[in-house]
């Protein structure tokens, strides 16, 4: 659609990110980690973590991915879920949808 040597120029309305993303520097020593993905119960957080899980599985085939989900976004995660995460996972990614 956009051609070289065109007759008309116009501004690109898209924004430029003002703040660069912060690099994530924490690392795991375990070569075969179990990674927990905890959604707060909103559909957007579940969808997001599904994709995160797929990407992690591709990049870290040796990792075990475990999905957790709160049944109700308005309450804190149950002791049962927290104990499962603590006993099983080397790291947890929590996603907040709303």
């Amino acid at each position, binding site marked *: *659609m*956009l*051609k*070289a040597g*065109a*007759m*008309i*120029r*116009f*501004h*690109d*309305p*898209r*924004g*430029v*990110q*003002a*703040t660069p993303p912060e690099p994530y520097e924490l690392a795991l020593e375990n070569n075969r980690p179990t990674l927990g993905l905890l959604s707060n119960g*909103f*559909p*957007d957080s579940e969808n997001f973590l599904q994709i995160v899980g797929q990407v992690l599985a591709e990049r870290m085939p040796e990792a075990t991915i475990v999905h957790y989900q709160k049944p*109700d*976004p*308005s*309450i804190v995660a149950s002791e049962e879920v927290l104990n499962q995460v603590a006993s099983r996972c080397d790291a947890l990614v929590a996603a907040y*949808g*709303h």
Partner: protein
Amino acid sequence: MKSLQATELQTSLLQATDESEALEALHELGCTDGLPVVVPTPERVERMVLASGLSADIDLGAVGPLGGAATVDKVATAAVMAGCLPDFMPVVVAAIQAIITDEFDSTEVQGTTHCLSPVLIVNGPARHSCGPIASGYGCLGTGHRANLSIGRAVRLVMRNVGGAIPGVSDMALHGQPGKLAMCFAENEEDSPFTPLHVSRGFAADQSVVTIAATESPQSVIFSQEADQPDRAKNLLRILGKSLARVGANNAHLGAGTGVVVLNPDHANLLAEAGLSREDVAEGIHAEAHNLAKDLTDVGSFVARSSKASPDDLLRAFQKPEDILVVVAGGLGIYSMVMTSWGAGPSRNPAISVEINIDQACAVPWATS
């Protein structure tokens, strides 16, 4: 408010063979709201920047969720695309200054699965000098260029600079028509009350835009004979109950900003009963509640209601100041309410920003 700072201007220009192709390119890039836009040629954007009285490279602040820099250049680009006249630009700039505040929290407002979108309420001399911005018949509808193009410009900044793409980063399940544009002025001339911006701490001769992220406007019908002794009380009651409808977020969360747009007849009815704007907000707040059991009976998922005793009154807003009472619209039996969201760390407050019309420049519009 954030101080204005110049930044390294990163204007990138696209190219096309003609305006039609440029328009299609903007659609393909996802930079429109689905409707045709005015192609933001450098000449048009330059005029809009000039009208703002600001330098193109001034960064008003970051718009979430992308965190894109809302430079005057980008805001002017959106204003051109939306169909603004240069005269409208000071209102657009002030509205963006409100959008970028931490309290408004554009990342949360744009990212939520809820359908909220900002409504812009304009007070003071800018209603005339930056418009006219309609405050009478159909002020929330069609046919008023300033209302629609100013509101649309703000939405285009939120989409293109803030990176709010439906289903990707704007997670509203359905969206709503207000995501195209929602802007009107208060009818100060026919209002019996002090103007909204004066109630919020500004001088009467200042121009101010107040924004609140809300749901779509909903009609409230009310008509009673003049000799009905309780009609002021009944009007407050029906407005409060409309703002506390059990399907609204704020009924469950007890927070957010509600907007009540009184038609002048309803406003005069309340004023004749001796009520000020603050009294009206207080009266509506007092009526905007539900019994806890009315919320739990419809399956409220919010723990707040389930912790309460069944007959506890749960208010739909934290305080009367969270209900913006505005006078606008034609004469008759209908007023409007806008219910709210009430979530996020700031709980969805209203933000008022002065419109700086002294620094604005009169720039004739051009068709080139």
